[in-house]
């Protein structure tokens, strides 16, 4: 284990360094995944480029109709931000189950996304919010929808020299709520057996579903949106019956593996139950908002 640690002052400098030392260079931010992977000899970079202190990438910015989260935003900042206590609660709920306090004080949400673990807890909430990523590379900037960004377990469409700088999503319309549920073998410091994020919007004057976005983690090679389940719910009355059917359809669309944490069959069962519960939680939250 031997590498050089570089500490560029700007994104441009970081990208230049990555280009100069490619393919033996790797970016590092909070290091809570990278350093462990180096210690386990899973990766062996000759050059680590520390992006943790790059300016302008740790802010949570709110505009009239959208939010932008800097890629270096820490989980703890999401947990404690007042904007995520209302209908964007899914972000707070997911941020607060990542690791322990120590990890959440330093690990970045951008790191969680680019690692592209199928069990990444922060990815399903952002998928349910239809988030997109801003990326800077040698050829300039580009944007990509998160759902197109992650292509498989540990694989994204990011080139090794590009940097994710921020994550954007639009605010939710009235009569919307979100929820995040996670099941692990124990409650703290645990990798998800399955996690589910849901975003539900009801029609203006009925209790029918107007818009539904579901995202499921750890039950497929990558976190995914069960489109059939989402489509099924549009125009249906929100309630136990329709939510249970959506859960069944989501379970059908999942392709979990059996591993040390759970069997594939158990995971599929969890998907059905957790989708139903997440939607029920959303519905309760919409009702509470209107009281």
């Amino acid at each position: 284990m031997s590498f050089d640690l570089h500490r560029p002052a700007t994104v441009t400098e970081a990208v230049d360094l990555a280009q100069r030392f490619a393919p033996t260079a790797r970016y590092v931010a909070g290091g809570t995944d990278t350093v462990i992977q180096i210690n386990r000899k899973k990766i062996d970079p000759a050059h680590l480029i520390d992006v943790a202190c790059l300016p302008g990438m740790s802010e949570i910015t709110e505009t009239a109709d959208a939010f932008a989260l800097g890629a270096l935003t820490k989980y703890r900042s999401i947990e404690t931000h007042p904007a995520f206590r209302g209908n964007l609660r899914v972000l707070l709920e997911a941020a607060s189950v990542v690791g322990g306090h120590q990890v959440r004080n330093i690990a970045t949400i951008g790191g969680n996304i680019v690692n592209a673990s199928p069990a990444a807890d922060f990815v399903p909430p952002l998928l349910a919010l239809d988030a997109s990523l801003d990326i800077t590379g040698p050829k300039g900037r580009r944007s990509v929808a998160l759902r197109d960004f992650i292509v498989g377990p540990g694989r994204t469409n990011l080139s090794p020299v590009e940097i994710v700088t921020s994550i954007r999503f639009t605010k939710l319309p009235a009569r919307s709520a979100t929820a995040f549920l996670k099941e692990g073998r124990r409650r703290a410091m645990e990798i998800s057996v399955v996690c589910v994020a849901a975003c539900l919007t009801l029609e203006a004057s009925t209790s029918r579903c107007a818009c539904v976005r579901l995202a499921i983690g750890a039950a497929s090679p990558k976190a995914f949106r069960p489109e059939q389940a989402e489509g099924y719910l549009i125009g249906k009355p929100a309630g136990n019956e329709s939510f249970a059917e959506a859960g069944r359809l989501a379970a059908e669309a999942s392709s979990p593996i059996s591993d040390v944490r759970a069997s594939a069959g158990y995971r599929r069962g969890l998907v059905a139950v957790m989708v139903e519960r997440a939607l029920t939680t959303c519905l309760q939250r919409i009702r509470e908002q209107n009281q």
Partner: protein
Amino acid sequence: MNRKILNIVVNGESHQVLIEPHWTLLQVLRNEIGMMGTKENCLEAECGVCTVLLDGKAINSCILLAGQVEGCSITTIEGIGDPEHLHPLQEAFIECGAVQCGYCIPGMILTAKSFLDENPGCRPSRDEIREAIAGTLCRCTGYRKIIDAVATAADRIALSGAKQ
């Protein structure tokens, strides 16, 4: 050797250390600066015995590259009190009998301190305390008294804050 100079402040004192790029903050604290209160165990941020405060916030020093904390301020267990002037958390841990083998206690106290500092004047519920220290494992199964101790310290700190 491509050693580089690292400037850090540990418990209020400035240090200049010659480090190798792969050294972690834990290695620097123990091997170079001699702060042995910071413990080494899992080296994967699972157990929390290596917890120190980085600019006031609890982090796992075992997986943080020392080169990434240039110019930062670190607090270890040695920096929050001494035998004559114990920190309220240290006092409460002794009173409540919260220390068994002791290996997790520096991390436990610093994790609790980070949480209490973040929520000044708060008297957390037992569940909130459990949640706050979830990243720090005690293998003597002594959590009940540890939670008693954090609750006791939180009450005293809140009370003394209210008096001031």
